[in-house]
């Protein structure tokens, strides 16, 4: 069995977000980049399947060389081989085209992606790749059980979950719930040493149209100061919620 993790590299969740070049570009100065949290759940799930079935685990990332330290982290956690498609992707469609092209001559049984990247919050790449390759796709996955090529997959729905039955090959958009929080893997010293010797192949991008263009960024309008209400005067709070906010 062969598994592929589609890796998105994003600013750490505590990052202050700023823009540069007249607010047209995200300012990477001082930002620490990490594995996209949703992909982190996927990586651990992939490792669990690998350990159970002896599967081979590859990682692919579309992005710049600076992200290689994050790719190495996935190798340190236990992936066998990584690919980086050497480009600075401008939109999701462009990224999806690169990944679909990469998949053309491959035969992965299971492709694990994340529900969304926490930077641009697109939630688009895995579904687009599925459409471009014709592969089966399930999104917002919170549970995955494999039995040979049979897969039972739980996806999150409004107010609950739905169990779906399908067969490999399959692409999933995973998220929290895929594995337990305490199961999440972090690299250890031995893994980090081994990762240095694992292959990280750099591939050239293919031409693809950029169909959406980010023109400008702004910060959301600042909140006005909080109105504090004394805990012994909750009538005032109810009055504010009723007459001012008009929410009750």
């Amino acid at each position, binding site marked *: 069995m062969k598994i592929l993790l589609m890796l998105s590299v994003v600013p750490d*969740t*505590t990052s202050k*977000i700023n823009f540069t070049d007249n607010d047209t570009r995200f300012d990477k100065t001082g930002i620490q980049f990490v594995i996209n949290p949703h992909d982190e759940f996927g990586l651990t799930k992939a490792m669990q399947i690998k350990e159970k079935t002896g599967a081979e685990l590859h990682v692919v990332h579309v992005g710049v060389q600076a992200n290689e330290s994050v790719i190495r982290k996935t190798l340190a956690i236990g992936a066998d081989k990584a690919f980086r498609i050497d480009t600075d992707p401008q939109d999701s*469609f462009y990224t*999806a085209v690169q990944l679909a092209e990469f998949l053309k001559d491959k035969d992965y049984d299971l492709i694990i992606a994340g529900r969304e990247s*926490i*930077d*641009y*919050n*697109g*939630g688009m790449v*895995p*579904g*687009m790749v*599925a*459409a*471009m390759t014709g592969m*089966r*796709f*399930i*999104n917002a996955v*919170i549970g995955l059980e494999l039995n040979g090529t049979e897969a039972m997959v739980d*996806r*999150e*729905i*409004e*107010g*609950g*979950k*739905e*169990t*779906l*039955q*399908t067969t490999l090959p399959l692409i999933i958009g995973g*998220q*929290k*719930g895929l594995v337990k929080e*305490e199961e999440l893997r972090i690299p250890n010293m031995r893994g980090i040493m081994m990762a240095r010797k694992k292959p990280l192949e750099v591939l050239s991008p293919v031409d693809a*149209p950029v*169909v*959406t*263009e*980010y*023109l*400008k*960024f702004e*910060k959301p309008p600042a*909140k006005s100061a*909080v*109105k*504090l209400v004394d*805990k012994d005067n*909750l009538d005032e*709070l*109810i009055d*504010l*919620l009723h007459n001012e*906010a008009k*929410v*009750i």
Partner: protein
Amino acid sequence: MSILIFAEHQNGKPNKTAKELASYAKALAEKTGGEVIALGFGLTSPEDLYAYGVNKVLNVDDQRFTTFNAKAYAEAFKQAAAQNGIKIILTGQTADGMYFTPLLAGMLKAAYVTQVISLPEQNDPFIIKRKAFSNKAIAHVALKTDIKILNIAKNSFGLQENPVEGVTETFKPEVADEVFEEIKSVKVEKATGKVPLSDAEIIVSAGRGLKGPENWGMIEELAEVLGAATACSKPVADMGWRPHSEHVGQTGKQVAPNLYIAIGISGAIQHLAGVNSSKNILVINIDPEAPFFKAADYGVVGDAFEVVPKLIEKLKEFKSAH
């Protein structure tokens, strides 16, 4: 240039998301010209949508579509778009909407933008605003293909009644049986009798400040009095005090209700990322320095175990008087 929207429903009735999409589409159609067309799967009261400006409802009457199937739905949208000269497709920020729309975008090779919070500033080029960086920024994005697909952020546009004379037609997408066989739904588990988080006008959310799962009785009672949904912070779900489906934040659900009440939640940046597009935020926290107060509209500094029961009493009085 007509606009096609996804008309999701609950028990056959168009839901709030469908009505919000209709409202958005109507406002957009007034700028771009053309009609608003809704595509629904087994709607029993499609006419509810006329009130929000939908001129035509395409209602799929085919048992195979009763249970959501992403690829089949994407296929149906593709066909409906082609047959009606559609240039703009709108879907909602729901589990099903977020699932099938990227498939549709991939099939149509169309520009697709999620988290949309505004009408286009102009039509040519077609530029909209969207949330990005987990609510820490707003981006202006141009869509550059002939067909454009927008996924509208929840509660960002609101409902606007705008009655028109509508018609409903039966629509028969041609989708092979094999498509439905590829991925099959075998079980659905849903919390019943509760307000779903996704459509809630008010959300009562609690964090580690509540000390233990046994103390959630008052949270549920407050939610019940307000007709609200319940939510929680990440550690609360991680420790198993509450189900994972209630976890909101950057790695949980993104919510944007009219009122978000945060009780015993510190207001970590990752939590705020999932809730700060709420229209109003009320924070109840024992610590006046809790960061959440900076993101709040209303605040009460106090012990939740004292404030919440009192608030429930006051609200009950208020409700019976109104």
